[in-house]
């Protein structure tokens, strides 16, 4: 065996390289955190001054230079509820089909690929599609129902994927145990599998609602109203929505001085919604995780 001679200073050089690399990673990460924190802080600090009870419960006034954002909040809630009605049952059933019923591996892979593709389609394309099919072809006009359907389709992939993953993590022994007792497949799913998967499925549903609450592009041409002082009275009415309202205030304002504070307030309300949704999702995840442990 030949004798090997390693460079003497190698260890020191290596350590130096490592120090530089780690410092870079840390510095860039810090940069990102600072930028993100400053975005949040900026909007929180500017927005918090505007938000009060009247802001949340009043309609816009004086050509949107005063008043609150009540109709936009209600509109966004309507759209969330509407899209939930569309996407929850279909999404969950689709997830169940993929994990419990579909037996052909190739088929499942194909469906999964389609689901991934659907989730990658830009929201503006959903907007176009919603306009073509719901507003024009089915003749709903600009309405809550058209907006909800569009948003519902948009949020399907998240629900399908989380449902499928939740079901996949349940061991087969559970299914076999139930079937061995004479339960049918449906009974097994309903009584054994679904209850176990519920926390993660709910987490997925909540996160999908988060996405729905903030989307603007899909409702631009299917639902959103520029300004509408009264609340919608049926699902065939247009409605205001928070993200679109923010867009309008920020870009086509008539009186910047007075409208910008309202825009900050609206942005903060949107962030608060997202925050609540994330906290709720995390909370449910943790709550059920502990529950499973103590059992």
């Amino acid at each position, binding site marked *: 065996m030949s004798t090997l001679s*390693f460079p003497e200073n190698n260890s020191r050089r290596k350590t130096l390289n490592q120090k530089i690399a780690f410092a870079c990673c840390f510095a860039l990460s810090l940069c990102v955190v600072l930028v993100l924190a400053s975005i949040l802080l900026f909007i929180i600090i500017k927005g918090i001054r505007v938000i009060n009870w009247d802001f949340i419960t009043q309609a816009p006034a004086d050509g949107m230079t005063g008043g609150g954002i009540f109709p936009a909040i209600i509109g966004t809630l309507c759209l969330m509820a509407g899209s939930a009605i569309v996407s929850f049952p279909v999404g969950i059933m689709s997830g169940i089909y993929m994990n419990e019923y579909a037996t052909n591996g190739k088929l499942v892979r194909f469906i999964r690929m389609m689901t991934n593709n659907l989730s990658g389609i830009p929201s503006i394309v959903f907007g176009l599609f919603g306009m073509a099919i719901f507003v024009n072809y089915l003749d709903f006009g600009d309405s809550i129902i058209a907006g909800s359907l569009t948003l519902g389709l948009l949020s399907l992939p998240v629900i399908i994927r989380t449902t499928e993953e939740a079901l996949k993590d349940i061991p087969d022994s559970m299914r076999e145990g139930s079937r061995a007792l004479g339960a049918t497949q449906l009974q097994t799913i309903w009584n054994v599998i679904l209850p176990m998967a519920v926390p993660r499925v709910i987490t997925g549903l909540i996160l999908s609602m988060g996405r729905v609450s903030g989307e603007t592009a899909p409702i631009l041409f299917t639902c959103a109203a520029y300004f509408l002082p009264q609340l919608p009275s049926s699902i065939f009415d247009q409605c205001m929505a928070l993200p679109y309202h923010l867009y309008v205030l920020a870009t086509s304002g008539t009186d910047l001085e007075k409208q910008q504070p309202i825009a900050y307030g609206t942005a903060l309300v949107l962030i608060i919604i997202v925050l609540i949704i994330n906290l709720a999702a995390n909370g449910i995840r943790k709550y059920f995780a502990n529950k499973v442990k103590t059992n």
Partner: protein
Amino acid sequence: MEIIKAQHVNFYYGSFHALKDISMEIEEKSVVAFIGPSGCGKSTFLRLFNRMNDLIPKTRLEGQILINGQDIYGKNIQVDQLRKEVGMVFQRPNPFPKSIYENVAYGLKVNGIKNQDVIEERVVESLKGAALWDEVKDKLKKSAYALSGGQQQRLCIARAMAVSPQILLMDEPASALDPISTAKIEELIRELKKQVTIVIVTHNMQQASRVSDKTAFFYMGEMVEYGRTKDIFTNPEKEATQNYITGRFG
């Protein structure tokens, strides 16, 4: 002449006392086997010699481990230098997702050798030393994952030997392999003994008796008995050892 010297070693995972007051000496160019039931601490002890347990959070070591008379947990020890001197082969073959050649060259490169000729010469030597050269000489640029499990493990041995360590730690190196591959590895251990000191952890008592000069029996975090392999297997002093090697528990 002893190369490794452990003095009153205690080791804790959090509050769990994993190794209890272990002292032992290992002689140069010998093969020492650690045997004992799962969870007895033999792997933990082995991983102290190249400070692999540093990677696990919330662990604590008491006592001293000296290699060539130096405290390897001392202040001015550089861990990467230590690990160059104390190589390791793991339970499952773990080649990198690189070519066969690159796998063996890895240790040389990360330790600062840049001369391609030196690297190439060394790669060939190591593969020959691991009795793998004839099988792979035509496909050095192929992925290491194209090899069989036994070949992969010999590649890992070649990889560890390439940086010419003084000590080679083997953590159940044949437990994931078939009998024929195992025999090849054992053959290799007997061959490598001429160059390095080998410490091997094994479940397999026949293996320990076939390859090792000395054997240490571990049980519940304690080193129950340490002596010449022949004595341990034919005439153990402690009852626990006797029970273990005759298969009464394990």
